[in-house]
């Protein structure tokens, strides 16, 4: 198991190198002069030139990339062109907020999706199935910013239960954004759970345990669900990854001080070190989450664990 983890961690290196090179290259191609954007329209040509020199923007592409990577391996994500502060400082100030939102949204999504998916499968073609799938259809169809605004209108403006914006009221601040984001991701988890459960409960071994007279609850929760969870776990892992980088709209609607919003502002301001820093963190997080998901497979299905060498 440890050997497997080490192998996977080593495999992260080429992934991160590839991602960083690709993003660095794309940002380099993007129109707009970062020096002019940082200093403003009124800056004198010699000041723009001095800024370019100071930030190494006059160096050839591969020299700049090598400098960046050299800093990265030493834990330095560079200096923001816009704020002139270390990018690491900016990113670390926001990353915990995004991580908390992603995790709580995942919990909300799982708590909603698993019961919905399971009920839909075991009550296939009944009203429950229809309602479950309707709810998940609504979740997947409704834009998250629209869902967010509806939640704010009802629970903040009309009922006054939760704050409209910000992260300064602890759990109360977290409830609405987590629900909005979780509800959206619930849909695909519920649908995957349903189809996976349907496939599992038609297997011969389920028929066998049913013939042995085991209670239905035990058949579903102990025998069927565990096998049905493998594809669901994959989807959940992917959802957490996408929530880390894809929660920009939720962060904007609820003014959640996360990394997604910071990245969008950085892209708009051609703040290349900040964009690079965010993407490196996203890529790393995504890869680690995938590794964790792979490890969880082993606990769900011992046959997979046996393959970890």
């Amino acid at each position: 198991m440890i050997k497997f983890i080490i192998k996977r961690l080593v495999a992260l290196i080429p992934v991160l190198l590839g991602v960083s090179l690709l993003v660095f290259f794309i940002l380099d191609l993007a129109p707009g002069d970062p020096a002019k954007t940082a200093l403003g329209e009124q800056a004198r040509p010699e000041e723009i030139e001095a800024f370019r020199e100071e930030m190494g923007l006059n160096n050839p592409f591969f020299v700049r990339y090598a400098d960046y990577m050299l800093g990265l391996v030493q834990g330095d994500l560079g200096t923001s062109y816009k704020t002139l502060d270390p990018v690491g400082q900016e990113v670390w100030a926001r990353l915990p907020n995004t991580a908390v939102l992603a995790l709580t949204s995942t919990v909300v999504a799982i708590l909603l999706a698993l019961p919905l998916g399971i009920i839909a499968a075991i009550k296939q073609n009944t009203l429950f199935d229809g309602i479950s799938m309707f709810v998940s259809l609504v979740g997947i169809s409704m834009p998250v910013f629209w869902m967010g605004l509806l939640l704010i209108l009802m629970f903040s403006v009309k009922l006054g239960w939760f704050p409209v914006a910000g992260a300064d009221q602890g759990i109360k601040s977290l409830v609405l954004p987590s629900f909005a984001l979780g509800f959206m991701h619930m849909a695909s988890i519920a649908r995957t759970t349903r189809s996976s459960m349907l496939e599992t409960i038609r297997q011969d071994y389920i028929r066998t345990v049913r013939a042995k007279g085991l209670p239905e609850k035990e058949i579903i929760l102990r025998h069927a669900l565990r096998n049905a969870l493998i594809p669901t776990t994959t989807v959940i892992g992917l959802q957490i990854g996408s929530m880390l980088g894809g929660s920009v709209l939720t962060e904007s609607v609820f003014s959640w001080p996360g990394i997604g919003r910071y990245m969008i502002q950085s892209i708009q301001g051609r703040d290349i070190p900040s964009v690079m820093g965010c993407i490196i963190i996203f890529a790393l997080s995504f890869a680690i989450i995938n590794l964790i998901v792979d490890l969880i497979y082993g606990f769900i299905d011992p046959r997979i664990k046996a393959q970890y060498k």
Partner: protein
Amino acid sequence: MTKKLMRGLVPALVLSLAVGLFAGCGSSNDNSQSAAPAQSEAAGSTTASSDNSGNSGNAGTSTAASGKDSLIIATANETPSVTTNLHNAVAGDYLNNMTHNGLFYTSDDLSPQPALCESYEIVSDTEWVFHLKQGVKFHNGTEMTAKDVKASLELCKESPQVQQYGNSTGTIEVVDDYTIKITTDGPQSGLLSDLCHHGNAILPADLIESGHDFNKEPIGTGPYKLVAWNKGESLEFEANEDYWDGAPAIKKVVWKVIPEGSSRTMALEAGEVDLIIEVETTDLARLQDNPDITAFSEAGTSHNWMMINNEKAPFDNIDFRRAIASCIDKNAVIQVALNGTGSVSDSMTPDCFPGVVADGAPSYDVEKAKEYFAASGLNPADCGFAVICSDDTKLRVGQVIQSCIKDALGIDITLESMDLATYLDVTATGDYQAAIGGYTSSSLLAYVQGVYHSISINGSNKTRTNDPNIDALIDKVQTTLDPEENVKVVNELSKALNELCPQVPLYLRNNVRAYRNGLQGFNVNAGGSTYYERMSWGSN
């Protein structure tokens, strides 16, 4: 047990979703119903009057009638920096006004008024002597003296982000602890306006020399001190009880960053914030209908236009430029793009400055537009051009312009969406035909130097206007120190620009704010500045 739970859970979920949808629809209806009055309002009308007297004194230290002594402000943008010399962002300017003072500040009528300066003398056309207020303390307790002023003004001149506000200060000499002398490089009528800018805010000289991180701990002489900056979320300020002009009545101010316009509106409605800086124009009518909220909408100096590249055909033809400027229904632009929160502008410079006139500028007249176009000798089929729109509001402006030009002159124009950084780059380098843009300045001299002087080509002179007569008149505005004479030169310049028609003025955007009733002393000058130390809470 699980079955029971599931039985309850599913209907509950469906029910809550349905209730949520109805709640949303209800509000949406409210919104659309109340949107109608906003559209019928006259452009640029004032929807709330301020009880601010315009003096520089504070609201006082007396306990507010309501007992409330904190203010929560919602803003769309987070400043990149709070260090006065390291940014030229509007969002940062608002905050710097709270923590710092300059020698002068911009008053409600946009004229420079003394702040840290007690008095001044113009010794000659190029020599100014400033006598400083005595006993003014920085937030760290040290007293402000002339050496701090010299170090701060020189810092501005060396900082790329704000150096344009340091160009006029020339040589700075310390005469004694409370007197400085500025010798300008030729007469500089814009000196006092430049001294109002946050780039010239006064900082402690010893901290400048020691390389103090002002972004972490801004030290100024202002009415508030920054106590916390929660990145991406909020900035918290506390009153400076030793403020030289009296401690502010509001003891705690929090700026919350809420980028989404609808969320800002709902935060105000829910009582979570007290004041919105950037009000969504589509929400204005709804806020006006709310009895607990005061909406404020007054003309500002934000001048918006369709800028056209005068170096490229067909815009190198003056008759064509005048034809385009005459065929656009600017009232329609204001209604569609701003929901009525603006006023028509025909003049090439913001109308709010003394001396500016609309004489000679094309106004909306389709027949006249056709005459100009006929005089240009151009064929409509050869005159199509692309207009860059870098956000949704500009796109709506572009759509109205597209329709007007097609209807009046039969010319096809295309709208090109572009992100802000690319837009700034291509328009600065002249690699474009037309774009929707704007410029905001509290000083007419800064405006004309930035927008029309040939020295700003490849910078903010995006129409690439290169006219020796215009340059000479702008230089004359800069060097004419006598206020009455200066207004006459501005008048001459304004007429010359209107005749030249280097771009298509559209509107002056209103400064729109909304705040909870009970907030007293609130005001915004045309340049967008608000002085929070003048505010207090009273009864609703």
